[in-house]
């Protein structure tokens, strides 16, 4: 553990100076530029909120887009930066959702108070179940996380006194800022925006931090990373803890928005665990903006498909998502961000010659 804990005292790795004549995309962004990009990107993401502030239908879609973007970005920390394809993030999502609902319905505790402790609890659970599974590589890890998701699903159905079992839990409507329940949709959309802004800010920081570089090193070549003195297991556990904690916060927000949760809503793979990965894939796995971009493309599209074809062609939206997933895996492995990156490179290449 010690080898990666020293990061805080040491000076940050200096950003590479911009050499004259070096192609621009090879220059590591300075901290200043990274945060300026962050502000610009978040401002762009905020625009639709301003545009649709009076449109309840679009505010709902926006709230879900921001939330899914934040959740996908949380998954991306361990799945994208760390290269550990967890399909079991539904477990941490559900921990956030159920714990919040239980505290609210039984003891009337404000979700604002429990949000962070629950996130820390989810991070601890994540480290506990990941510690043995991180011995597994690639597909074996994915299958194991899938199995955790199934076990949690079965347990959630079984533990009726706690989770309400198949009947689920619903939260009574008591509007008020302290209860995190609002009359107006825009307040929820704003809340979800704050969530995704927080997650992406963490990603910007992480991407330039020691832990972030270690995660990338582990993803690229675990053995080489270990040979370079990186505590591979420790790095993975830290990445997983951060990812799971943020996912649990997403679960809290989800619960307070829908005010009803049951096991299928929290554990169905194409809607939760795999969805986070899918959004990241479409946008660009391992990039800072990819997950949000993926959510911005997919969530409204899916919503439209659902409302237009739910009766005439049930399953159409998920069939199309599945097809998109196959095509992206085959032809667009780096997602939309990768396509943008290639286009920019080509333009620069032409400009130089």
């Amino acid at each position, binding site marked *: 553990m010690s080898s990666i804990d020293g990061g805080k005292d040491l000076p940050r790795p200096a950003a590479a100076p911009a050499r004259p004549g070096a192609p621009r995309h090879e220059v590591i962004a300075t901290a200043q530029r990274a945060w300026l990009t962050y502000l610009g990107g978040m401002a762009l993401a905020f625009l639709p909120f301003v545009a649709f502030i009076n449109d309840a239908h679009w505010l709902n879609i926006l709230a879900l887009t921001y939330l899914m973007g934040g959740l996908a970005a949380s998954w991306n920390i361990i799945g994208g930066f760390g*290269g550990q*394809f967890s*399909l079991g993030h539904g477990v941490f999502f559900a921990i956030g959702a159920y714990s919040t609902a239980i505290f609210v319905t039984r003891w009337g505790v404000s979700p604002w108070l429990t949000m962070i402790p629950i996130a820390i609890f989810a991070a601890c659970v994540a480290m506990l179940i990941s510690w*043995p*599974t*991180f*011995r*597994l*590589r*690639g*597909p*074996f890890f*994915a*299958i*194991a996380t*899938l*199995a*955790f998701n*199934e*076990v949690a699903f*079965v*347990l959630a*159905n*079984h533990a009726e006194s706690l989770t309400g079992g198949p009947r689920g839990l619903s939260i009574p409507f008591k509007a008020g800022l302290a209860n995190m329940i609002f009359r107006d949709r825009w307040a929820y959309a704003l809340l979800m925006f704050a969530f995704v802004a927080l997650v992406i800010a963490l990603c910007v920081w992480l991407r330039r931090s020691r832990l972030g570089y270690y995660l990338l090193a582990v993803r690229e070549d*675990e053995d080489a990373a*270990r040979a370079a003195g990186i505590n*591979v*297991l420790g790095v993975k556990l830290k990445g997983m803890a951060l990812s799971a904690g943020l996912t649990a916060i997403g679960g809290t927000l989800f619960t307070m928005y829908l005010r009803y949760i049951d096991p299928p809503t929290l554990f169905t*793979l*194409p809607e939760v665990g*795999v969805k986070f*990965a*899918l959004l990241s*894939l479409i946008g660009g796995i391992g990039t800072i903006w990819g997950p949000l971009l993926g959510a911005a493309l997919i969530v409204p599209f899916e919503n439209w498909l659902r409302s237009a074809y739910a009766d005439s*062609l*049930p*399953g*159409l*939206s*998920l*069939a199309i*998502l*599945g*097809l*998109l*997933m*196959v*095509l*992206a*895996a*085959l032809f667009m*492995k780096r997602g939309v961000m990768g396509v943008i990156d290639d286009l920019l490179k080509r333009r620069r290449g032409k400009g130089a010659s």
Partner: protein
Amino acid sequence: MDIFFTVLVFGLLLGGIYGLVSIGLNLIFGVVRIVNFAQGELVMFGMYGGFFAWHWWGINPYLSVFLVAPLVGLLGVAIQRLVIQPLQHEPNMQIFATFGLLMLFQNLMLMVSRGEAYSVGGQVGSTVLTVGDLKLSLVRVVTLVAATLITIGLHLFLARTMTGKAIRAVTQDKRAARAMGINVEKTFLITFGIGAALAGMAGVLLTPIYSITPGVGGNFILAAFAVVVLGGLGSVWGAYLGGLVVGIVEAFAGFYIDPVLRSAVWFVIFLIVLVVKPSGLLGQVGAEEVGFREQH
């Protein structure tokens, strides 16, 4: 004691089902090393094939299996050629691609069937054998027998035929097999095709037991992965044995602990095996090394 025996027999019969659906995955996951999340959907296609053959032309499932299984096998060959082969060296993208296929197939069938559950009616499904005090469902006995016969057949195929030997060679060492003049890509294609055909076969044989819905594959896929890992990757008898173990564990857990928790119990066993002895019960030591390495 009587109860104990009844549960044991029930578990064995259930194990036959799990063994049957896992044989195909064992080839695909154990030999070609593809995490095929869409395997359960191949079983589903087999079920629909069996159902429609019965519904439209009145063909008994035990007959139509000879038509449906090769068709599902062809679908498997197409999947391998178009989706899997280009991703041969990218396990993470295989996960996405095969899970995408799962979602695509499942929801295509949902669009076709509009969520209506089908089942093959008639005498076959409800016949009960009485042996002493035991009442056995005939189709479940047939399923166990079929699983056993298919396992024996597959064992003979892998042990005796040239193609089977090529498949085994590729399992053990891809590079050495290539050096011996084996066409590795073609072997993968054949293996994947056989694995898919076996899934289709399992599907048809299960039509008298399960009601057929688009999501039915979800009942099998994790069980099949558990069976394959438990039995040992690429081991034919391992998959058979693993199926029986999972079936018996589920039966006992369902009876003595809680029916709701029955699958959770073998999931936990599966996770323990995965972490502690990833080569499984009958797997060659090191057979799992492609996906697994010790951590310091």
